[in-house]
């Protein structure tokens, strides 16, 4: 309960600062939209040259992309920690965090929140509904519930991987470019993983499980029964990966000695 009230306070404060610079906010939302459009343009242009991509139609690929945008929006809003090393370890901000009686990861997340990223979920839903109606998909009463579970699972997988990477900073404070690399690898999960080499498919399923953020859960809604097992594993994989990352984080905090003077 206490944590919720803190989250609420931070959110209010955040809205206030964002609303002060409305033009900035507008330009940022537009550039987000542009970013989402680029991938859509890619899909549309590619499918103007080929009817199927290893058995998947244009609308199915669009649906997967739309789904992917929803957990990604939640992840981008709350796990904006790609510059954690620079901001908190090198500059010594972590010392300030640790003097407070709230869990350190929770504080870092609150401080780096980017709530406007949540608008990406709307774009995602719009793409999904468009593609879904083209495919003639029907929605059962329990589907929104399953959708919610899978979206949360996906966001947790992303969050887990990136929190684990940020935790590396506790052991080594030299700068690495692993974070941007992950953003690239994460994009693999947006396409049917059966087009890749089986090694990559294995990595995307069990080691860096980004396939659970796009193609596997979408397979459920698209009625691809051969992947139902993977689809329903999504929330579980999300829970496991986030838990592991929080454990790694806690171990790192124990080791942390502070960088500055």
């Amino acid at each position, binding site marked *: 309960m206490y944590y919720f009230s803190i989250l609420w306070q931070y959110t209010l404060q955040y809205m206030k600062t964002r609303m002060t610079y409305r033009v900035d906010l507008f330009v940022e939302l*537009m550039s987000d939209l542009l*970013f989402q459009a*680029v991938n859509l343009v890619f899909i549309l*242009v590619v499918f103007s040259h080929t009817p199927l991509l290893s058995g998947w139609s244009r609308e199915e690929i669009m649906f997967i992309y739309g789904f992917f945008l929803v957990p990604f929006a939640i992840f981008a809003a709350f796990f904006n920690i790609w510059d954690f090393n620079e901001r908190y370890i090198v500059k010594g901000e972590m010392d300030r965090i640790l003097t407070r009686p709230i869990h350190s990861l929770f504080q870092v997340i609150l401080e780096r929140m980017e709530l406007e990223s949540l608008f990406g979920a709307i774009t995602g839903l719009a793409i999904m509904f468009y593609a879904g109606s083209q495919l003639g998909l029907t929605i059962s009463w329990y589907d929104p519930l399953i959708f919610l579970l899978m979206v949360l699972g996906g966001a947790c997988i992303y969050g887990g991987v990136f929190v684990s990477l940020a935790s590396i900073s506790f052991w080594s404070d030299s700068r690495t470019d692993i974070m941007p*690399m992950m953003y690239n690898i994460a994009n693999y999960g947006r396409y049917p993983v059966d087009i890749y080499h089986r090694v990559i498919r294995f990595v995307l399923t069990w080691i860096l499980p980004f396939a659970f953020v796009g193609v596997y859960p979408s397979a459920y809604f698209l009625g691809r029964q051969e992947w139902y097992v993977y689809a329903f594993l999504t929330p579980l994989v999300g829970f496991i990966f986030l838990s592991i990352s929080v454990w790694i984080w806690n171990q790192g905090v124990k080791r942390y000695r502070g960088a500055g003077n």
Partner: protein
Amino acid sequence: MVNMYLEMIRIRFLMMLAYRTNYYSGILIYSINIGAYYFLWTAIYGGQESLGGLTVTQMTTYVAVAWMARAFYFNNIDREIAQEIREGKVAVEMIRPYHYLTMKTMQGLGEGLFRLLFFSAPGLLIVWLIFPLDFSASAWTWFTFGLSLVFSFVINTQLNLMTGLLTFFFFNNDGLIRAKRITIDLFSGLILPISFYPGWAQTLMSYLPFQAISYIPSMIFTGAFSDAEVWNGILLQALWSVVLIVPIQLLWMLAKKQLVVQGG
């Protein structure tokens, strides 16, 4: 004067060298990225011989070369300029005995040369070993590709200078800088060759400077361009390099009038 600018290139090059461990992971990033596109494009081609004037080998070569060329022409001087303007450092730079924008360009070039040597070259080698790409280009192709790449750098840097200078007029332009980057990725032919777009989009893009950044050098390298097209392309790049000087000079003159130094 020339010596001073050469020195700037050298200093930036050495600065990058100091942080070179970063680039080993960078090579990996690019290889993985190119790998993803390799599988994606093979799947897209399916059994088809050629799409948009490119065979599947040419296409994957195109992707590999486009990304490795990006390492050379890509730089963050727009962000650097924006930061120097916000922090007021630009005022000090203006009274120094060199042209601020030329200095930024030279720094960008130092960075680009570093990446070309320590990043693109080993990266291309790795990619070439893993994926069946066609790098059997003739010396002439390599020469025209190199020439075209120089113009890519010039045009991309000019666009960066413009976006950076706009910070004088909009206090915070992070969003704009990001939007510019996305626009270049899409319209320059980095993620999709221009010949894949529908006709009306191709016409529209032919009036914009973006395709001069990535599409032209990559097409030259894959050998999908005829000799006439190669020279047309390079001529177009040269034309844009000259034309873009005008808005930059205009912005720079306006910016100097606009400058308000806080504190100091």
